[in-house]
């Protein structure tokens, strides 16, 4: 009997980063074709990739005051870092308090959920009226957006810790604060890493929205400047930086999340 060959060598698929690079090049190619080959849109509506690259270079390496992109990125990162850290601490404390009381979860927890559904940009006018057109207003919006997902996640994660872990902790002598710090909080970490990403994403988006209305160097302010001077290349550069920075930090936190999940045995190392 003639055997048909069914045994095939395992096909080596390309690494994911190659696919990412390929997709990026494809987008650039399509963009180039639209703007430079077919010239479908005028440059003031859709600038070419070269124009945006030029604006990018000029923004980072041009002479001051035009070398403003670097300062803007640093300004935004400083604000989001501080706001994010405050949001984590505040969210952690509020989350722990919420986990202790059903009445608080029903009242304060519900309010927080409602506030979370309001787009962050809606709080910017309120922040300006309360704090003025300054950094405080920006921090207010960033912290507000970051702390709510953390508070809700901490509260939920603490209540969902497997009871057998709590029993083990108690029978081994952990009680009161030690039970929280040695059992409940460490057991909640995998759930909290997801909340860290959500909080980062909310804080970052809120920051850009709030910076649109402030005068201090920041990516949001660059977007506003680009709109004011009708420099669409600058607007696109700012959008790209916001996306890339946001994506990089998301990737960083995702890496941390994966590591935590592997350490906890929740994810298998491939």
């Amino acid at each position: 009997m003639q055997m048909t060959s069914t045994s095939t060598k395992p096909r080596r698929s390309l690494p994911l980063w190659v696919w990412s690079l390929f997709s990026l090049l494809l987008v650039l190619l399509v963009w180039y074709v639209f703007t430079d080959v077919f010239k479908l849109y005028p440059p003031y509506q859709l600038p070419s990739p070269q124009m945006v690259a030029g604006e990018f270079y000029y923004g980072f390496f041009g002479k001051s005051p035009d070398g403003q992109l670097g300062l803007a990125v640093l300004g935004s990162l400083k604000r989001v870092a501080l706001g994010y850290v405050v949001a984590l601490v505040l969210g952690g404390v509020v989350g722990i308090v919420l986990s202790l009381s059903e009445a608080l979860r029903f009242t304060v927890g519900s309010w927080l959920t409602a506030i979370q559904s309001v787009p962050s940009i809606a709080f910017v006018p309120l922040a300006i009226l309360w704090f003025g057109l300054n950094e405080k207003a920006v921090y207010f919006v960033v912290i507000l957006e970051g702390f709510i997902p953390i508070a809700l996640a901490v509260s939920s994660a603490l209540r969902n810790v497997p009871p057998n872990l709590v029993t083990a902790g108690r029978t081994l002598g952990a009680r009161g604060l030690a039970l929280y710090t040695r059992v409940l909080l460490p057991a909640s970490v995998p759930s909290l890493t997801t909340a860290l990403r959500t909080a980062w994403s909310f804080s970052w988006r809120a920051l850009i929205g709030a910076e649109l209305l402030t005068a201090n160097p920041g990516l949001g302010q660059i977007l506003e400047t680009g709109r004011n001077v009708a420099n669409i290349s600058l607007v696109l550069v700012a959008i790209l930086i916001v996306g890339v920075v946001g994506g990089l930090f998301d990737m960083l936190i995702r890496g941390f999340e994966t590591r935590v999940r592997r350490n906890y045995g929740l994810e298998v190392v491939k």
Partner: protein
Amino acid sequence: MTASLYNPRASAQTLIHTEPVLKLENVGYTYAHGAQMKAALEPLNLNIRRGEFVCVVGPSGSGKSTLLSLLAGFLEPQQGQILLEGRPLSGPNAGQTLVQQEAALFPWRTVRGNVEFGLEQKRVPRNERKKKALETLELVGLLEYAERRVHELSGGQRQRVSIARGLALEPSLLLLDEPFSALDVSTREKLGLELLELWKRTGTTILFVTHHLDEALKLGQRVIALREGVMVLEGESASITEAQLRALL
């Protein structure tokens, strides 16, 4: 001592010559079941001597879990009192450590970190803690796994770590709640023998809860049978047969 149908006075008399580690004096517990009250554990008198290996056996709903929760300090007796080392029991305590059905190891800690947990709560110095943890892991045959993550272990190994975690505290009483029930038959038997060996080497007082009659008779020096919250039999395992237990339960 011979097996006898439960008679509180008789059992108290038989053990009176030895000072008990654990003493239950008329301990009872009743659950509210809707508007009705259901006695989960009828008033019970029991003494457990130091170094004894006692098995509690009974079907589901017999009061085993209630008894264990009372002894672990998670429930307070509604009547009577429990004395551990002559003192009334007050809440969960490293003096009476519970090993649960599932190993319930802390996944954020290594194997050694898990064994050290209770010692940390007792504020044992770091070096001493590490030494004790490694000694205990050696005792359960897992020394080479000390720095591994707990998810890298098999079910049987996890349960051994869980037992080591309890043993490291040198408790007055080690409570085991059907610790091998989630394991396959051969692993269960193997771990049972290992537990016996551990008991012989450490002299720890053990109260082992199971619903497997053969396991209770094989492991325990003394067997206590519960049915519907009542102790229906208590005696040396050597003088009890499985058929006798089966007839009662």
